[in-house]
Structures are given as C-alpha cells and as structure tokens.
C-alpha cells in the first residue's frame, strides 16, 4: 500500500532522444491509474522507470514517500505483469509463484499459504504443478497475475498485460483485474494502448502523447471534456468529428469563446430529430450505414465542405445509404478547440 509520486521526471536516451519531458504525476494510495497513448508516447518507459528497469535521467520517483531513483527493482517492493507474461519456462506454476518469495527469504509455511491463497483467488490451483508451456494464454495470464499478488507488493505495474489475448478473454480478464485490484486495494499503474481497456479499468486516466501528459482525470471526465485535440481524437470510438468553425457559422447562432477555430462533435451527440434549446443544423448525405448491434454508425458527407463525419445513432434508425439527412447538434454538446495550441478554448 503506497502512493507513487513522480516529480519532474525526464528520460533522455543515450542517443539524445528525449522519451519523456518533465513529467509530474501523483498517484494516491490504492488508486488504479491507466497510462494510455499511442505507441512511442513514453507510457511504457514511464512504467519501466517506476519499476527500476530504466534509469531516470532527471527528476524523482518516490514510492511510499521514499525516493527510489537509486534503488534496484528488487528493493522497490513492486510487482510487474509483463506483456508476454515473462513466466519462467523451466519452473512449474508453483515455482513461478514462489520464486519472488524464496528470494526474499519468506518462511516456507508463509510461502505455501500465500501461493495457495493466490491460486485459489485466480483459480489456478489445478495447474500448480504444470509448466507454463502447458497452459493456455488466459491461464498464463493468471499465473503472471498470481506471481504479482503473492508478493503483496506496495504497487502493481501492468505493461499491456492483455494485448496477447483474444478479444473475448481480454474482456474477461479486464473485469478480473479490476475486481482483484478493488479487493486488494493495491496502488496500480496500468499501461495500455487500448482505449476501451483504459476507460473501463481506470480510476484515473492519464493520456500521454510524445513524452508528455496530455490530460489526467476520471475516464468519463476526459470523454466529456477533453482538454486537447489529441485527447479528443484518442478517447472515444468512433473518434470525435472535428469541423472547421467557418463551415458552422451559418448553421446556427454560435456562442463560442474567442480563439476557437475548430469544433469537436461527438458522434453520439449528433441527432436526427430537432432538439430543444439552441442547436446547429447541418445537411449531409449518408454514404455508409454501419450496424454495430446496440447502435449504428452513419458515415456521412457534409453538404458544402464534403467532409466525412460519423454519427452514432440508435440501432434501428430508418436511414438508407445515399439519402439526405438533416443533423442537429445541441450547442452544449460542442467542444471548442484552437488548432494552433491544440487546446480547448472554453
């Protein structure tokens, strides 16, 4: 149980490439923080710096109030779940779970108690005497989690732990990780590039881009009020439509802040019936009707500018491809941005 405080951290590689610029992040005790961003944004590097697998070029990382910059990974009392699980192939599942405890000189009966407890929680007791290669991907994933929880560390670090699983298993494991983290209340840092995983798991979401934090906040807060164009485009599927303000000037009485030149509209806020209150009216041609199940996506071309936009509408909306549509967006659903700064203007 511990907080993690990252202060002014930089990572500069030997070649002079800066992977992380002056990053600050405070993770309180028991929180599950998800670092999300495109590949190469520095999220894994940051995680590895917390783990002690990468040197910190500048700044400090403190776990439980103690600066750990100079400490070996073993001394930081953290556990990590790797993308490829990193199970020791020559040891049984039990051997894998015990390894970290044995290295720390835990008494035998305590080791057995913890291993059996972890095996019970993760339902891997029947496989304890098998080797990793005899297990399925999902089972290996559980063993990797087991290896983390038997240690009862101050923090869990997850490095894209689900990306090697198929979609169905990934959904299941996601729920299990969340449940496990809730029950154990262990501070966790979870790295992923999958925004669905990020949204569903996070207590707090950290969106990273090019070695910098774009925005930190609760997943829904980020969805509802993205601070930058990058976050607006990264969080949400299908992504937010971004429309030039000049196109919208004659579509309704705009009351947007000074400096706004790009307006974001979430696909699910585009309506086909006229809403109450102030709104925009746009005309478009439906090019593609994409039924998803619970909802349908309409890919449309705006009249005038010819820009492609996407709307998410209820499943059985009666639209035909090639038909003209009238689109309504409430003024309160607009996200004003400035292209130059890439930031929100309100």
């Amino acid at each position, binding site marked *: 149980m511990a907080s993690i405080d990252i202060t002014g951290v930089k990572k500069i590689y030997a070649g002079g490439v800066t992977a992380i610029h002056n990053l600050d992040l405070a993770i309180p005790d028991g929180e599950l923080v998800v670092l999300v961003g495109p590949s190469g944004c520095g999220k894994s590097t940051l995680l590895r710096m917390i783990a002690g697998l990468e040197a910190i070029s500048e700044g400090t990382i403190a776990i439980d109030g103690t600066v750990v910059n100079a400490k070996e990974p073993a001394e930081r009392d953290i556990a990590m779940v790797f993308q490829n699980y990193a199970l020791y*192939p020559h040891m049984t599942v039990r051997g894998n779970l015990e390894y970290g405890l044995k290295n720390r000189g835990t008494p035998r009966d305590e080791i057995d108690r913890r291993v059996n407890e972890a095996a019970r929680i993760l339902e891997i007791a029947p496989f304890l005497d098998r080797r990793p290669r005899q297990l399925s991907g999902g089972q290996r994933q559980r063993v990797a989690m087991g290896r983390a929880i038997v240690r009862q560390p101050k923090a869990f670090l997850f490095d894209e732990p689900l990306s090697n699983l198929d979609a169905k298993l990934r959904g299941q494991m996601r729920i299990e990780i969340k449940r496990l983290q809730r029950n154990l209340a262990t501070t966790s840092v979870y790295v992923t590039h999958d925004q669905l995983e990020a949204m569903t798991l996070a207590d707090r979401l950290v969106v990273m881009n090019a070695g910098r934090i774009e925005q930190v906040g609760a997943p829904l807060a980020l969805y509802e009020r993205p601070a930058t164009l990058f976050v607006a485009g990264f969080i949400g599927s299908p992504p937010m439509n971004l429309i030039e303000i000049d196109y919208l000037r004659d579509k309704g009485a705009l009351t947007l802040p000074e400096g706004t030149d790009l307006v974001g509209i979430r696909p699910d806020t585009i309506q086909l019936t006229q809403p109450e209150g102030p709104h925009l009216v746009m005309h478009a041609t439906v090019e593609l009707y994409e039924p998803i199940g619970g909802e349908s996506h309409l890919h449309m071309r705006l009249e005038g500018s010819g820009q492609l936009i996407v709307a998410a509408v209820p499943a059985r909306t009666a639209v035909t491809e090639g038909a003209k549509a009238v689109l309504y967006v409430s003024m309160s659903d607009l996200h004003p941005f400035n292209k130059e700064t890439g930031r929100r203007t309100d």
Partner: protein
Amino acid sequence: MQAKRTVFPNKGLPYLLLVPQLAVTLIFFIWPALQAVKSSFEREDPFGFKTTFVWFENYRRLFIDPLYLSTVSKTAIFAVSVTALSMSLSLILAVAVNRVLRTNRLYTTLLVWPYAVAPVVVGILWWFMFNPTIGIAPYMLRAVGISWNHRVDGVDAMVLIIIAASWKQISYNFLFFVAGLQSVPQSLIEAAAIDGAGPFKRFWTIVFPLLAPTTFFLLIVNINYAMFDTFGIIDATTQGGPAQATNTLVYKVYTDGFIGLNIGSSSAQSVVLMIIVIALTAIQFRYVERRIQY
C-alpha cells in the same frame, strides 16, 4: 517441424542426386571403417607376408594391457579437463560480451578467430609459448618459482595440451553460448530482477537453466572434440610424451598403427573409439531435442 515433401516426377532422379554424397561417404568413411573392423580381427606377420584371423585376440590383449588402460584414464582426464575449461571460460566470455551492448559484434568477431586456426598451428603456437628453452610462459613461471618443463614432466605436458586444446575450442563454445544467451527473453531477466534476484542468482536460477539445451549439446560436442579431434595439437606439441603421459586414445591409434606398425591392435583401438563415438552421438540425438524446456 514437418518439412514439405518434394515429389519428383522421375523416381530415379532423387537417387541420382544422392549418388555423389553417398559415393563420398561409402569410399571415404564406410569402406575404411569396415576395413578397420576386419583388420581388428587379424594379425599381420612382421614382414607383411601373412595375415592370420585371430578372432578377439587383439581386443583381449588390449584390455589387459596396462599401457592401454592408462591411456584410457589419460584420455578421460584430458577430455574432462578440456571440456570443463573451454566451456566454463567460453560461458564467462559469452556472458561478458552479452552485457556489452554496443561493441558486442566486435568482441564476438575477435573471439571467434582462434577457431579459424588449424590445430597443428595451435599446437605449435602453444609449444613456442611454453617451450622450456625459449618460451615466454616458463620464463614468467620461473619468476613465481614454478619450474616448467613439459619435455620431462608428464603433468606439465598434460596441462600444456589441455590449455592448447581448450583455447581452440573456446571460440566454438562461445558462439553457441552467445546465441543461447541472446535467445533468453530480456523480460524474464527483468521479471527475476523485480522478484528480488541479484545478478548471480538470476544467472544461476533463470539464465543457466534456460541455457541447458545449449550446454548439453556443447558438452557432447566438446567431449567428442577432446577425444577425437585433438590429434594435430598433440602431435605438434608433446607427441604423446613424455613417457606416454599425454598419449590419448586417438594418438595411440596413430602411434601403434603407423609408427609401431601393429595394424591389428591399432584397428581394434579404432573400433573401440568408433563404438564410443556412436554411443555419444546416440545420446546427443536422443536427448538434445528433448531437453528443450520452452
């Protein structure tokens, strides 16, 4: 791994394509081997006029000959020492090179050079360095109070051929160990580091067990090398002496057969060696594939 079968339209063609290799094998390997088996049951009179079939007499004499039995133990000492020395040194070098990130190609290239040196040249090289009269090594050893003379001291001679034979084999082992080390996933080492294992513990509990297939393969190859492939080195340095101190099984086949002209005994010794090689190869084929732990 199932290789794709190629189907030849003409049934005779595949056999025709195999003929050159089969011919070489038959003429240069199988036929001489059979000749050796045949003459191991025969005794030649001193002037080469008459050959008598003597059943297992050559073998019987061999295994009651104290000289031969001492050669067996000399060979065992030599093979075990060469294997242990060259494998441990090459493992240390491989681990060291594997830790160096930027220049490891350079080190690898340099460390492989000895393998390109012909065995006789290796022998001569070490013979010069350890030459009691003009060599640098005895000169330096004298400074620390050790008198080195492999011409009269059997232990010195054995040490010399062990050093020379190991030196040459280090390159070969090194290459396999480097490749083996590089195939150990980095994340396993990182996981072990987080699991509280220091560098030595990581090596012995994670890396070394994962190298087991490589180590086992090299063990067999090195024993084979030390027992059968070191003729050139011994011939160029000690020639089996002094007083048979460095006479290994292979070298004795040569001295008994070509110097002593006792073809029958020499052939019987060859057959014994052949059986050892076959046994080692069988072990290798049977276990090398199976021992892989992944």
